[in-house]
């Protein structure tokens, strides 16, 4: 079927253009928009009726002259050309190669929106991913096929942490491992940091990069994570690789969505974000997992910066409702000079319950983790009490609680940016710092576990 082309558009409004009488267009169809002498831009049909078609133009509508604008309907949806040789390559936010090596050779066009995975086809993720970071391995364990975002704030070392996870991540069994990196509206410096660190640490030959930089068109940000996830799914389900997808910054993505929604005149919901923000984010985050009978997997590690460090803001809030937990970074810990500044109490890994303990990590893992949470939670109460009455006035139990708090933050949490700790080492350290507490406080451990691991007081 020949492609249809129309000259002249009737309306330009923000990133949208309106074209009249386009009988063959379909919902979601891609178009090329061009003006004589200008660069061709990509667009997508977002609404259509008998009379007119509304097209969202990636790359913006600047300099479009309504009378001269040519719109070519491409008879395909938002898609990306993929082949085995994409590993190691770089693309822009729309999935076009930017590394100067030409188009993807022998590629197959795949719909970037993906399709919902049948829940029956999924396999429940259970395999422990070693990250070498005590706070993550012990308390918010990353599982293969999980979607575990990092909730951060501006100025916190989330990029450093993401790099450390990406370079130290080891699956206990398989080696066929790759990283897909999607930068959405990120600063040139940040992009540079990622590329440099990952190549220095020997991950550059199995990484695929999709970059939409801060000064690239906002509208392209809608496409970037979809391109990256399509590539990841292709690598996982067709090439059998275990793919770790790092997406940063999801906040830029949501801002772009809001900008678009407002421009389209939609009824806004909380804080001006569109009512479908939850469904839209879910259509991205749910593209992680393990499929029965397929050897690869997609693990997602999206990074988002919480506006004003507010975890109840719609972006982190809706994300937390969709993802399988979250790793929250704390400005307070960062201020104390502790790296990684992970606030373990608000952090959570929903999948760890089935991926730790006997047969996975170590028998005592669930008990130690639960007790560390409970005891560290109490430290917060004791600290605020000490702030009122002074440390000297505290009871013996409370004093031991403070001591435990200090050990937890300075020994257990704090580690070097290159320090790769074994899970057994982390758990032993957990027991060591727990022994600072009286036994009566260890209510989360069973009597047998206490007897086995905590030495009897001799006093």
């Amino acid at each position, binding site marked *: 079927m020949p492609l249809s082309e129309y000259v002249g558009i009737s309306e330009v409004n923000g990133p949208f253009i309106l074209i009249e009488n386009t009988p063959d267009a379909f919902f979601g169809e891609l178009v090329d928009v061009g003006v004589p002498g200008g660069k061709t831009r990509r667009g997508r049909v977002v609404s*259509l*009726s*008998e009379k007119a078609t509304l097209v969202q133009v990636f790359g913006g509508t600047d300099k479009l002259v309504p009378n001269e604008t040519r719109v070519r309907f491409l008879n395909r949806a938002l898609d990306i050309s993929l082949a085995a040789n994409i590993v190691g390559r770089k693309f822009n936010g729309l999935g076009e190669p930017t590394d100067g090596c030409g188009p993807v050779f022998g590629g197959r066009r795949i719909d970037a929106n993906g399709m919902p995975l*049948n829940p029956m086809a*999924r396999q429940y993720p259970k395999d422990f991913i070693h990250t070498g970071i005590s706070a993550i391995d012990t308390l918010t364990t990353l599982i293969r096929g999980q979607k575990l975002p990092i909730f951060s704030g501006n100025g916190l070392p989330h990029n450093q942490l993401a790099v450390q996870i990406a370079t130290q991540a080891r699956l206990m069994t398989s080696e066929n491992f790759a990283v897909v990196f999607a930068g959405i509206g990120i600063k040139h410096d940040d992009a540079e940091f990622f590329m440099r660190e990952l190549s220095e640490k020997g991950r550059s030959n199995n990484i695929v990069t999709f970059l939409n930089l801060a000064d690239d068109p906002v509208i392209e940000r809608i496409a970037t994570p979809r391109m990256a996830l399509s590539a990841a799914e292709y690598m996982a389900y067709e090439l059998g690789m275990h793919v770790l997808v790092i997406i940063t910054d999801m906040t830029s993505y949501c801002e772009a969505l809001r900008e678009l929604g407002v421009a389209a005149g939609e009824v806004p919901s909380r804080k001006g974000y569109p009512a479908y923000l939850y469904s839209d984010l*879910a259509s991205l985050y749910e593209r992680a997992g393990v499929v029965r009978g397929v050897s690869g997997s997609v693990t997602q590690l999206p990074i988002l910066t919480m506006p004003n460090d507010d975890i109840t803001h719609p972006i982190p809030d809706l994300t937390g409702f969709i993802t399988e937990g979250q790793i929250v970074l704390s400005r307070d810990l960062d201020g104390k000079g502790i790296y990684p500044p992970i606030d373990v*109490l608000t952090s959570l890994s929903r999948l760890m319950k089935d991926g730790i303990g006997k047969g996975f990590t170590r028998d005592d893992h669930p008990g130690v983790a639960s007790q560390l949470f409970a005891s560290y*939670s109490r430290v917060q109460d004791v600290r605020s009490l000490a702030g009122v009455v002074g440390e000297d006035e505290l*009871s013996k139990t409370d004093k031991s609680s403070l001591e435990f708090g200090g050990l937890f933050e300075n020994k257990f949490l704090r580690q070097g940016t290159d320090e790769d700790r074994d899970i057994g080492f982390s758990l032993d350290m957990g027991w060591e710092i727990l022994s600072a507490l009286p036994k009566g406080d260890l209510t989360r451990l069973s009597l047998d576990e206490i007897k086995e691991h905590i030495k009897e007081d001799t006093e």
Partner: protein
Amino acid sequence: MLDNNDARLGRVDMINGPVINARGMRNFAMREMVRIGEKRLLGEIIRMDGDSATIQVYEDTQGMRVGEEIEGSGESLSVSLGPGLIGGFFDGIGRPLAALLDKEGMYITPGIEVPMIDPEKAWEIKPVAAAGDMVTAGTLLGTVQETGLVLHRVICPSNIEGELTWVVPEGRITSGGVVARVKVASGKEVDVPLTQRWPVRTPRPYRDRLLPDEPLVTGQRVIDGLFPIAKGGTAAIPGGFGTGKTVTQHQLAKWSEAQIVVYIGCGERGNEMTDVLEQFPVLEDPRSGRPLMERTILVANTSNMPVAAREASIYTGITIAEYFRDMGYDVALMADSTSRWAEALREISGRLEEIPAEEGFPAYLPSRLAEFYERAGRVVTQYGENGSVSIIGAVSPPGGDFTEPVTRHTKRFIRCFWGLDKNLANARHFPAISWLDSYSEYAKEVEEWFGANVEPKWGELREKSRAILLEDEKIQQVIRLVGEDVLPDDQRLLAYTAFLVKNGYLQQAAFGSDSYSPPSKGFAILDLIMHFYDRGMELVRQGVPISLIRENEAVENLTHLREIQSDDKSSFDDARTKLDNHLNRVETERTREQGGAE
């Protein structure tokens, strides 16, 4: 119902995401299901205006063109009801996901048609009625042993009444088969199929409503002990993300004393459904020892599946629940999460450009919630037996704020409120059901049952432990300001007892042997803790310092009582003896000291 003219052929004239507009729709019915275009996508008519109609489409509309044809189905959104539902896993509009997987592979492609129950599937039927019998709505016609746990009662549907002219002989029947033939008043003979259809938005009829006075035992100590739910009752579990809504729902689905469990995953994670699918077939029902899957039905529209079908999933689930209730069973329905359903309403409403009420939600949100929760209840069925549907709905308030519209309106229509507390969840105290915010209006109504069946002291223990927890909250405020040491010993004993209740009784791991805790075990724990409190208080009044009472292994071990197996009575007795020995010793020493002083 097929029309042989073009009067029932519409055409798409506008597409806006999951909402489309069509023309030529004059002869279609409001709420009728339609098939759209080349891909035969499923949709439902939600608004009619002259020749044009607005349709919400249950599948992804990408690729749809203006001018595509629309074909009517002649029925509103309906489900198939009959043997073959148990153990099944359906999407929001009732398509079996296992069959979709076989047919189309790992992705759900738009436009697939698969019958909800495979008509070829064979069953063994035992007829109960005989030719010549007069039947009416609710008459038992026969039974099918559907699973090891469920005897499926084939009951005469509500629109058929008359004389039986033929009944299927004992033996093999397929799901698509006919059970009986009835001569109705008009003299016409009608077939009663084994699998019937029912429109999901219409509640199924029953004879009479009963008061809910029997508890739905859940095996969760905080619920059974403090905030019980009745069979036929309604409960809501609101909580921000990470507070354990889904884990609590899974716990209830696993251990509730219901004969049938319907679990609706509405706009939630795919992996959570996979978790249920992998766990339930291997987990045993604690009462019968059979796999839990033999009484469970799953309905799921995960968050990445089309939004309109998410709205439908709630109705699909409740209709299935009512169908089993009508056989005289106690059904527990879990809806996780009703907020996603409300948001689906909001999304569709936004696309229809309706005037929004609070926070963008449509003005009819409260009435929809009421309609849903009112489909719960304990009833006398048309069949004559008592049956019930209990609804437990999770609510996901944005930012964990319980004043938002969905939580607030839900509270108006439920009678049991299990509020999840972020601070408890952060300290990994699970289930994170707050003992301060939660309430149960059924507590008084079910007290008699617990008193008669479990423990005569049930009501007393409940009152006492709640009073201690409430008093403790006040004491904790003082402790946060000045520390514990300055308090009088009676208050310190109370605070310590509250600590024991929280850590030894309320806290319950979702995994391992404590996951299911029968009421008898819970009461044994609570009884012992209260025994300690009473005796401790006597000693405090005699002037014994709290440290002497508290610092002993027998007391500290009160937080480990839950590690004892529920049927291990001797260990509980042992713990009581040790505790009494310790307290006796403290008392004797005290008396001796006083004697010496005099």
